[in-house]
């Protein structure tokens, strides 16, 4: 008791150790909550984005059908650009397993814009059909994911 404290030295040591452990624990909890928070944000956003994606894919298919029957390709190009916007935003939100399909479609869109001008109209058209096929698959895939999320 020569230091003027009422407590034993070992009690003081113990409390210091506890506070250090507490600090570490706080950091862990903070990190976990942050993760859960972002996870929830993704879950809350995904159904909305899937709906958007689906309607965009549908209008792309409609535009392609029009291209096929009337030879009008402006709408299809517009639709593909809009689709790219949605996909780029989606890329940051989906899990790793679905990311692959998102990247496939984005890759197809990008390869399109780089050599679009040197393709003949026919080639460009069938490329667009393949692209919309992949986009449709993606929309179906994410639709399933949305159903999975509902039960977890």
């Amino acid at each position: 008791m020569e230091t003027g404290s009422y407590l034993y030295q070992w009690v003081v040591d113990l409390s210091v150790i506890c506070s250090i452990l507490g600090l570490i624990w706080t950091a862990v909890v903070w990190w976990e909550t942050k993760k859960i928070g972002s996870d929830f944000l993704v879950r809350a956003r995904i159904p909305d984005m899937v709906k958007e994606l689906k309607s965009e894919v549908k209008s792309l298919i409609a535009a392609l059908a029009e291209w096929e029957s009337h030879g009008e390709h402006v709408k299809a190009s517009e639709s593909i650009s809009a689709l790219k916007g949605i996909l780029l935003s989606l890329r940051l939100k989906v899990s790793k397993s679905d990311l692959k399909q998102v990247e496939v479609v984005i890759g197809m869109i990008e390869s399109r814009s780089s050599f679009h001008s040197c393709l003949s109209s026919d080639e460009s058209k069938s490329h667009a059909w393949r692209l919309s096929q992949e986009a449709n698959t993606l929309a179906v895939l994410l639709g399933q994911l949305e159903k999975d999320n509902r039960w977890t």
Partner: protein
Amino acid sequence: MSSDDQIERLLMQLVRETSVGNVRWSLTEPHYFLNNATDDLVVANFGASYGDLSVGVYEARYKYWRDEDEFYWCSEIRFSVAKYDSLIVDYRKSSAALQQLYEMARTQVMDFDSLLKGSFF
């Protein structure tokens, strides 16, 4: 490739063939088992023959059971494939391709081009 994936591909192919004009859709009777031995009701069935298959897109009204004795009616677009009068596919995932195919079949059956008189207004 899963079977769902293959059906989606078939749907896209049908959309393309329809837009080119290779597939003709018409109002047909739904397959027997689509509205028998089930509570589902078929609103409209558009059928076409594709190779030796007869494909159909239809809108069904079905009971969505919320609880044991509580339901409400829902509507859904579905896709069916029959071969030799047997129903072999009844696909119920409403994808973008399926929605679009239904719309195109309907537009073709309605035949808006001849229905709407350009000189009327």
